[in-house]
């Protein structure tokens, strides 16, 4: 599928080289350029990372969108870029966010709505992938407003995550986007049966210190009684993700598998539910560096959008109005003329 808008990704003061690399791969996935402002001096820098200054950002791009969780900013879902805009989305430092200099040159700010009360952000590379997915393809629907969104939230099963940091970042995204529990089929033993270093790095990526999500281990031999299973994939299978109904509540399981490890077509998903369908994450390029956190975060963000949230305001109560009036049964075409007017005439 061809992208509708050209959007470049700019990292502002990104510290972690793994995040720099993951951001570059996120941009590659959507056929965009990735540039960096204020790269860490003397640190390990990924090959091919291009630098840009805040002045150049201001000159080269319009609009410049700051991806931040500030108050009263535009929501990413439903945000439409102007036609033929050469936009840039700026993702800030992992801890401090966007710098003051870049904030000054940004024209608008957008945010990914966070449902969790304890986690207010997701991994910067995952957030960049989500932002590019929504901005590049144009309008994909707004955040739904429901009275009881929790009843519409499906269960999530992470299958065969190969990298502990990738799986940790995906778990963090899940918690921040509103899930209380996630099933994990840990085939590569990067989460439950791993060594101490892997475990601590994975927990750090998932922000386990303040992430209250419940992780339920499950095995590939287990059978489940879900009513429906939706397998999220980047292959050309099934409906596009925004056109798939992903808000059928706890009877629906959404399977997000690490496709660098398993072939989702060959896998027997009947063990999860009798009814299995596929949902495709459209990617404009055929080959890209696969990051589980990108695809998982995009899928979780789309489900979160469809599940929606409670209204942040209550509609104004209509006060009763009583009226005395004379209702005419058949109005003749023409004009009402009063005696006063006729006299004047």
């Amino acid at each position, binding site marked *: 599928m061809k992208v509708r808008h050209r959007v470049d990704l700019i990292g502002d003061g990104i510290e972690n080289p793994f995040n720099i690399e993951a951001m570059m791969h996120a941009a590659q996935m959507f056929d965009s350029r990735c540039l960096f402002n204020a790269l860490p001096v003397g640190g390990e820098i990924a090959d091919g990372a291009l630098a840009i200054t805040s002045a150049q950002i201001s000159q080269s791009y319009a609009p410049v969108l700051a991806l931040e969780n500030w108050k009263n900013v535009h929501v990413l879902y439903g945000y439409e870029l102007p036609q033929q805009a050469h936009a840039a989305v700026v993702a800030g430092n992992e801890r401090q966010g966007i710098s003051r200099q870049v904030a000054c040159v940004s024209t608008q700010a957008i945010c990914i709505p966070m449902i969790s009360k304890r986690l207010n952000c997701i991994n910067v590379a995952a957030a960049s992938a989500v932002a590019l997915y929504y901005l590049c393809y144009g309008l994909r629907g707004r955040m739904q407003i429901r009275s009881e969104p929790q009843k519409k939230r499906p269960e999530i099963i992470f299958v065969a995550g190969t990298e502990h940091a990738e799986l940790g970042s995906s778990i963090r995204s899940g918690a921040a986007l509103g899930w209380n529990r996630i099933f994990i089929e840990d085939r590569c033993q990067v989460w439950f049966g791993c060594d101490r270093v892997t475990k601590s790095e994975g927990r750090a990526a998932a922000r386990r210190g303040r992430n209250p999500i419940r992780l339920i281990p499950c095995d590939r031999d287990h059978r489940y009684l879900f009513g429906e299973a939706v397998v999220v994939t980047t292959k050309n299978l099934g409906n596009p993700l925004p056109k798939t109904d992903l808000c059928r509540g706890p009877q629906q399981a959404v399977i997000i598998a690490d496709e660098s490890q398993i072939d989702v077509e060959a896998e027997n998903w009947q063990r999860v539910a009798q009814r299995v369908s596929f949902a495709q994450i459209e990617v404009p390029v055929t080959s890209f560096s696969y990051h589980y956190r990108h695809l998982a975060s995009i899928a979780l963000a789309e489900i979160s959008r469809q599940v929606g949230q409670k209204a942040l305001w209550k509609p104004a*109560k209509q*006060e*009763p*109005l*009583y*009226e*005395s*009036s*004379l*209702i*005419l*049964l*058949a*109005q*003749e*075409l*023409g*004009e*009402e*003329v*009063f*005696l*006063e*007017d006729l006299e004047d005439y």
Partner: protein
Amino acid sequence: MSRSKHTRPPQIIAAERIRHPSGKRGKGDPSGEQRMLSVLKELGIEISEYAERESIQQATISATIAGAISLPKISVQRPRKGFSHPTGRALLKRALLHFGELSWYGVREISLIHNPDSVGQNKLIFGRLSVPGKILLYEQPHPPWLLGGLVRGDQRQLLESAGATVEISSDGARCKIDWPEDTLSNFMLFEVFMHEIGHHIIQQFKGKRQAQVLRRKDHEVLALAFARRCRQSFLYEDRHG
């Protein structure tokens, strides 16, 4: 049949609250007076109960005379050319004073204003009650009214009972409504203004003033009945002094 002292009729509550808008809820409660008198009696001070009551009543009457009891604000917007306000400020005041505090307790504002909706719509608006307590009375064109449509049967009956003459044109598509003498003024006073006051009283004494407390149909029936009673009472008083 006994009655709790806290379930006083609306007439009494309305009068007391208007006289003492910031007073405590128990003000004027006879049991309070009784308690005070018994305490004074225990102390050896004897005050005639009747004398005490009389003094309270006298104070109320003098407050009324002095204008301490204020009517709701009546604002009048000058009518446009060809239009008029059939009920003026003076007539509205007279009617309110006649029907007592019950009729205006809780009314915040009465406005006589232009009628922007009257032209180009297939209805002629007379008045509105915007809950809580805002009554709008619209200016009306000078009679006779030549309307480009027919009026509903029940509305025709209402107009004719108020003294209007309704004539339908020979082609059956238009009608002419004429208001001889002061019938339009009386219509606006009773069938519109007191009708809206009737709606207001229903809302005011239900304790849920922001919500519709009755079905609209029942609301209308009760307001209509109230307006009829007011018309009879006011005109009888007018004729017989």
